[in-house]
Structures are given as C-alpha cells and as structure tokens.
C-alpha cells in the first residue's frame, strides 16, 4: 500500500514542478521568438539574394529536455489505448523551438540576419530504457548569412 502513496507523491511533484517549468519555458520561448523575429530562417538550400559580406557560417542550437514523472505516467496509460501522446508533443515542440532560438542567438552574435538550409536532428537520450524518464536531444543547424532585405 505504501507504493501507492509514493506514486501519488511522485505524481504531485511531477505535475506541479513540470507544469511550472513548462509554463515558464513557453513564456520565455514567446519572448525570445519576438526578440529574434528579425532573423529569418528557411530550409531552402541557398539564399535567393546574394550575401552582403562574406559567405555562410554554420550555426547550431542544441537542447536536451526531459518529461516529468506525471507526463511519463500519463503517456504510459495512453500507450495502452492509443491516441495522441500530448505529453510528448509539447515536450518536442518546446525542444525544437528552443533549439531554433539558440541557433538564432548564435547567428545574432555573428551579425547574421538569415539562416538557410535549416535542419533538425532529434534523438532519444533514454532510448526507451525501462524505468528511465524520457528525454530527447534536439539539434537545429543551418547556414547563417548577412543579406540585404
């Protein structure tokens, strides 16, 4: 019976810390997205207009992010019946956007205003190992250039 108590406590901790972290993260993502709005990103390989100075520089943003116990528990139940794994969806959305923002921050230090050939790499850190909290690494990279508007 103690197990139930421990799991309930873990769920409460996971839920409260997890949702506070997620809310704070999304808030920060929204803020920085408008801050870096002027750096344009595209997955097209080359820029239609020539770069004003120099060539392209490789920029990258990397992030490792983990779900909380509550989300893992919910996704465990979800996997029994199937359907949208919403708890992992928001995790990956945060991961991708954070990786883009870090890449943009790197581009900003170079004075670039556009990144072309943007690519994503996503890999699982936990690899579905039992009793481990699911965590992913998201890497975004591209070629930063300074171009005329």
């Amino acid at each position, binding site marked *: 019976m103690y*197990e139930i108590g421990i799991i309930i406590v873990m769920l409460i901790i996971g839920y409260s810390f997890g949702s506070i972290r997620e809310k704070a993260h999304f808030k920060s993502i929204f803020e920085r997205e408008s801050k870096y709005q002027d750096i344009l990103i595209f997955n097209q390989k080359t820029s*239609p207009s020539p770069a004003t100075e120099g060539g392209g520089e490789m920029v990258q943003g990397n992030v490792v992010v983990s779900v909380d116990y509550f989300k893992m528990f*919910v996704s*465990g*139940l979800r*996997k*029994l*019946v199937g359907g949208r794994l*919403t708890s992992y969806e928001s995790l990956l959305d945060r991961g991708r956007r954070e990786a883009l923002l870090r890449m943009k921050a790197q581009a900003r230090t170079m004075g670039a205003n556009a990144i072309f050939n943007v690519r994503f790499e996503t890999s699982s850190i936990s690899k579905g190992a039992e009793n481990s909290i699911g965590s992913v690494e998201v890497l975004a990279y591209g070629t930063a250039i300074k171009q005329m508007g």
Partner: protein
Amino acid sequence: MKPVYENPKIEEGINYSQEHPLKEFVELLLGVGAAILIALVVVHYSAGYLAKQIPFEYEQRMLSSLDLSSLDLGDLIDAEEDKGDGKANDYSAQEDFLQSLANKVAAEMDLPDGMTIKVHYSNSDTVNAFATLGGNLFFFKGLIEKMESEDELAAVMGHEIAHIKLRHPMVALGKGVTLAVLAASVSGASGSSAGEWLVGSSAQLGMLKFSRDQEKGADAESAKALSSLYGHIGGADSLFKHFAELEDSAAMDEDVNNDNKTKGREDPSAIAQIFRSHPYSEDRWTNLLRLAKQDGWSTRGSLKPLDFPSVSKVVELEKNGGMRE
C-alpha cells in the same frame, strides 16, 4: 515575380495540445482503470474456479518434487537456533500430538478422497498457524502457548484444515500467478510503471477482500467440525473472545506508544477493514454466533484441557543422549 521571404508568426497550439493535462489524466485513469477492473474480475473468478478443478493429487505431486520435509519451515527456524553442534532439535512428539488432533478434526470434516493433512511444528514464538499447498499445515509454538484448551486448538486446526478442504492455497496460487501475468502484460504494453501500478494496487485490495471471505468460510467449516467432535463450539467461542481481547490490548498498546487519539479498534470503518487480510476477531465472533444460532450449535460446554507435550522435556532427553537425531 520575386518570391517573398518572411517568417510570419504562427498561431499557437497547432503542434501541441492546449487541453489541460489533468483532463487527459483523469480520462485515462478512469477508462483504463475500468478496463483493468473488468479484466481483474474475470481473472479472479475464472482462476479461482479453474484452480479448484486441479486434482489435489497434482498439488501434492507438485510439492513432492520440492521435498518439503527437507524444506520444513520448522527445521529452517530450528537450524538457526542450533548452537553449532550440527544437529537440529527433534519435535516429533509435538508433531505427533498435532497430527493426531488434526486427524481427529479432519475425520469430522468430510474431506474429499485422497486429501491428506500433514502438520508441521515450529518452535518459534510467532503467534501464528497457516495452511499451505499440498495439505501442509504449520503451527508455531507462540500460538500453541496462547491456547487455553484442546477445544481452542482444535478450532484453529479446523480452520486451517478448512483452508485445505476449500483449496484456498491452490486458488490463491492460481490467482496470484494469473494476476502477475496480467500485471506484466499491461506493464509491458504501456512501457511504464503506470499500468502495472493500476493492476497491482487494485489486485492487492481484491486479494485482501478475497482472503477475508476465505477466512469466514474456513471459520464456518471449523465450527461445524468442532460441533460434531465435541458436541458444542465452546472452543471457537472462547478462541475468538480471547483473540478479540488480545486485539483490543494490542490496539491500546499501539495507542499509548503512538500517543494517538484515534484508537485502532474503535474505528472499524470499511476503509480500515479493506486493508486487512483477516476480519477482526470480534466480527468473526459475531459471525460465528450467528451461524451457531442458525445451525443450532451450542456455544457452551466443558472445554478439554490442553495436554501439549512441552519442548523442554525433549531437550532434557537429548542432553542425556536420549532421542537425538
């Protein structure tokens, strides 16, 4: 025309759900919980029914490969007490006494053909007795010391034999194994502890309830045997009275130790009951009196004194090089 290159702001909530996470949690918990509950009920009844169909002979054969005599719990405990002379104590006098009482009680219990009872004695202070697979009963010294008459011991004996007669150890094994498989499948399918937890905790509560029902069933069988053996069920009556008193004083001790204002026994709520494997002795006593009234058993009668062979005598004999092996 030159294409327009821009990054417009995209609406939120397309790539992730904006629904409250607790809503999904509650929905899943109720939905999956209900499905698991249905599966548990099916397993509970079918495994319980099927386990009873397994011939008792198979149960004994399964145990014979384990060689229970060498695995004897009593011996294991005695070996620990052994002072290094490499020889275990001999409790054959105690086991013979218990065995002959068991035979006497079992004769009144209308056991199916081929069902035999084997009693083992353990010289441990644990206040307990239990029945297990293959018709094996274990009696601990601690319990026997608490008995005030042969009738009381016979009431316990009848209760344990009833567990064997009703195939409770086999049913428990059948249910346990099936539930373990169910829990493992659910946990494998969900890839997390969530499903296993749901199965485990509901099964645990289910097993406790099931075990309490078994105890009540065994009490009824025991009282019936007692009535035909001694002509009254005074032994069971005084046994439960005795145990109810012990529980009360245990609850009181706990109360004093914990400095807790709510006394264990004074709140026999359904919640407290559901976490117990045995019903309270007082409830069992009430149950017994109800049965006695219904079946016309007398609860009054002279109790036969208990003449249990004392262990110290055996030890003395051993010292004189007597019965030692």
